[in-house]
């Protein structure tokens, strides 16, 4: 019931805004409706804590003989953190909208509220069926939003590519279910066959863009800061929850060590790119990729709580940074202080992030701690580079509400370190946190002193596209295969559809008939 109350606040708020937009476009208080809806939803999510675990079951799919599982949603300690993070970022997004140039923007708020509702359903998914349904809802929302908002042809194509990769990710989750069923263990988030874990990992990796590493949107300034941020973070949260749900016993494939290596390198590469990037919004995919890789690593090390810690840091830390657009001394300090929550030091949100019973080769620690430090140092740098817009030029209400939006996300980052879920009030692997913090401080100190760490923006330089990269070669190999298959299919089609096609068909039929007759005998 409590889940339904939260969802009602979000969906009814979105519906009310939509109806007002259609029937009363001059309505003056859409923002108040949006804020009230998301605030009530946020507060109701806090109330979930009283009655955890909570469940929501949709009417059972029938016939039951074909559908042993129906969409089912559950609030437990892990999914609550994600739901809380999402509503917090949603609240922050709508509160900070007051200073945006496009204010008021009711359609964007409708999108944010609806997306928040779907995102919450995704993180509460109790079985793969529920997860795959909510994933598709998010994918379709993203696809149509992008198609409606971008005008450039190449960006439209990228939207389609991004959608296909995500659908492929959903496909891998379905395949994991089939593999598990074939092995005699129907897939759910409690038990799964050992063959299926790798496919779930690939599903999450594909959707997050980690495995294989791909960035469908290298530049996405076309998406607005508010809705764009919400979209990216909701999409990431819905995929990250899978990492916390994969049963560790299912991750016993012989391919896992290779996957681990690839993810580690992805973490290092994306954190390096994030650290060196000059534009925060353009670099957003690297932040998502880097933090998501660390979450994947935690899952592979049998630490679902750690994976949630990284995931929550991705959402709340990312939300805090990407929504910040005004310069103010105190707000900048909040941004810098938020780094503590991501430092993996004791009693912080990420205290449990590096914990695990699994031992790890020292070389990996070098890569992973470097990646974490680069992400944090990059975060610090991006926090410093928030555009200098005059804070005092805004109305008194904006000057009060905007910091509230930023502050509430910061508050969530801190509070989750000490309350509300299994990762709270934990000491964790404090020595690793100390090392990461130390490297981060060194990087922050070195950055202005070493030129190669601080590249100047060079818009006038055209990237060297002539030289083929490894990824480029892989893609060209893929396209060669595609064109070969296309030629082959056309050849066969031409034969079968030509005037002689009937003869060919009859030949096939005789062949089949003889095969069937032999089979029967």
């Amino acid at each position: 019931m409590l889940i339904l109350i939260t969802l009602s606040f979000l969906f009814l708020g979105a519906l009310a805004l939509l109806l007002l937009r259609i029937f009363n476009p001059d309505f003056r208080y859409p923002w108040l409706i949006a804020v009230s809806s998301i605030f009530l939803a946020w507060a109701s999510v806090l109330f979930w804590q009283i009655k955890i675990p909570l469940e929501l079951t949709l009417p059972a799919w029938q016939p039951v003989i074909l559908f042993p599982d129906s969409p089912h949603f559950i609030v437990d300690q892990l999914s609550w953190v994600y739901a809380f993070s999402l509503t917090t970022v949603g609240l922050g997004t709508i509160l900070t909208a007051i200073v945006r140039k496009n204010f008021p923007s009711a359609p964007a708020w409708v999108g944010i509220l609806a997306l928040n509702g779907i995102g919450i359903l995704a993180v509460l998914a109790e079985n793969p069926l529920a997860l795959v349904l909510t994933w598709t809802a998010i994918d379709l929302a993203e696809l149509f939003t992008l198609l409606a908002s971008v005008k450039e042809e190449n960006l439209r194509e990228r939207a389609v590519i991004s959608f296909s990769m995500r659908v492929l990710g959903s496909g891998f989750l379905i395949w994991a279910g089939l593999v598990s069923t074939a092995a005699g263990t129907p897939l759910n988030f409690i038990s799964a066959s050992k063959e299926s874990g790798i496919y779930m990992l690939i599903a999450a990796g594909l959707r997050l863009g980690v495995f294989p590493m791909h960035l469908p949107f290298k530049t996405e300034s076309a998406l607005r800061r508010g809705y764009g941020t919400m979209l990216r973070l909701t999409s990431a949260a819905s995929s990250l929850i899978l990492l916390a749900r994969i049963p560790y016993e299912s991750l016993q494939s012989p391919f896992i060590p290779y996957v681990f290596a690839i993810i580690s390198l992805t973490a290092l590469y994306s954190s390096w790119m994030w650290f060196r990037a000059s534009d925060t919004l353009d670099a957003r995919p690297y932040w998502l990729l880097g933090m998501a890789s660390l979450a994947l690593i935690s899952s592979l090390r049998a630490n679902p709580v750690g994976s949630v810690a990284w995931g929550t840091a991705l959402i709340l830390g990312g939300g805090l940074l990407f929504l910040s657009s005004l310069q103010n001394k105190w707000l900048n300090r909040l941004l810098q202080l938020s780094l503590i929550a991501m430092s993996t030091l004791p009693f912080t949100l990420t205290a449990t992030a590096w914990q695990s019973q699994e031992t790890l080769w020292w070389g990996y620690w070098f890569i992973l701690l470097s990646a974490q430090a680069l992400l944090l140092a990059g975060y610090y740098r991006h926090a410093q580079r928030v555009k200098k817009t005059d804070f005092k030029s805004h109305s008194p209400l904006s000057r009060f509400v905007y910091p509230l939006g930023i502050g509430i996300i910061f508050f969530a980052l801190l509070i989750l370190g000490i309350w509300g879920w299994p990762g709270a009030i934990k000491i964790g692997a404090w020595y690793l946190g100390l090392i990461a913090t130390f490297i981060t401080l060194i990087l922050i100190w070195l950055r202005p002193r070493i030129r190669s760490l601080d590249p100047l923006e060079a818009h006038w330089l055209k990237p060297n596209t002539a030289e083929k990269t490894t990824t480029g070669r892989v893609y060209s190999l893929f396209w060669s295969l595609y064109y070969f298959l296309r030629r082959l299919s056309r050849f066969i089609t031409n034969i079968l559809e030509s005037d002689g096609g009937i003869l060919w068909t009859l030949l096939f039929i005789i062949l089949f008939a003889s095969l069937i007759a032999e089979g029967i005998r």
Partner: protein
Amino acid sequence: MNAPLIWIGIPLILSPFLWLPRRANVTAFLGGIIALFLALLAWFLPIDTPLRISATLSFKLADSFEILGRQIIISPADQPLLTLIYGLAALWFFGSSAAGVARRLVPIGMSIIALLVASLSVQPFLYAALIIQTAILIAIPLLSPPEKKPGRGIIRFLIYQTLAMPFLLFSGWLMAGVESNPGDLELLTQAATLLALGFAFLLAVFPLYTWIPLLMEEASPYAVGFILWLLPSIAFFFALGFLDRYAWLREFDQLPDVLRSAGILMIVTGGIWAAFQRHLGRMMGYATVFNIGFSLLALSLFQDYQLSAFFLFIVPQSLALLIWSLSLSVLTLREGSLLFKSRQGDIYRYPIIVLGLIFAHFSTLGLPLLAGFPPILAAWGGVAEKTLLSAFWVAVGVASLLTGAVRTLAVMVMSPEKENWTLNGSWLQNILIGVGIFFILLFGLFPQLMSPLLTKLPFAFSYLGG
């Protein structure tokens, strides 16, 4: 009064009168209402049960009708099937005006449906092959108007469908022998082989489906869509009749393997061929091949799930096909060509029409949240339990059809200049497609809504229905 007169006689008698109205809208509306009325009657009016109208008056609808020494029997168990056929036909008829083919499709379609219903009810049931052949001949003017020269697709359609008839008649003749002499392996082999070939022609099993893409290029997509919905559906019911009737066929060890192999062949070839098409109509044609493949696959699971997996496909597939062909017809009517190069950026000019096209395509390939997903998941899961290799091939087919969908989507959003959104197409066209999209989403999220109908459908087949 008897049931065959209501569900076969009335539509056959009314169909010539549907030529009379001069306005296509009226024809479509009348056709839709008649079909809907017949569907409702099939759902509510009991057959072979006395109905007490007043203290002195009662009424009983007989279940059979004799003609030329043959019997046409519509039993109470057939009623859900009639509801399904006439209910879906009503949707096709209502949409025909928006597709611009109402004046041909409604009268011809009505008589084809009546004949195909007769084919399912005739005794001895071997006469069904002849009635199906008559229906196919009647379908020719629908697909190829008299003023137009018939293309290769229509001729091939006629040849392949006609070839099915002798195979089925021969196999039926041999089957009577098998029943009386079940130990005769030679006879059994001949009967089964001929039956398999007959249905391979009728269901357009690989490589006998070349007429489908050709026809999609030549004729109105809506008219072809109607035929591609109706003929395979009736052919499947006819095949179920064979399976239900002959125990030796039902218990034939290799039957599930044969059905599964044929299904996978259809799914893989249909999917792969669709992935490389540059014509939206041909793409839909191959998607229909894919649909038939999944129905065969679901049928192969009859020993485990009876017919529930098979019947689960009917409504989603029909709905997707209806929306898809309507969208294509609107684009053909307004723009002419369905070639990729001519349809770039259409999503900005025809947003709802193109969304209908895209949603129908995605539903066909089983994208989660859409109507096609639950049945595909069920059938795929059932196949995976048998053999993971087969499930893998199904995945290849699905991924290939997804490639086709992504290509279509990419073409639709591809526009050299920055286009602004405009809503083209008539209100009727947009509303019908919009409602279709809504139902695709509704059945994707709540497949149990089809349950009242689906639970009753298998009773038409006493042994298979369980």
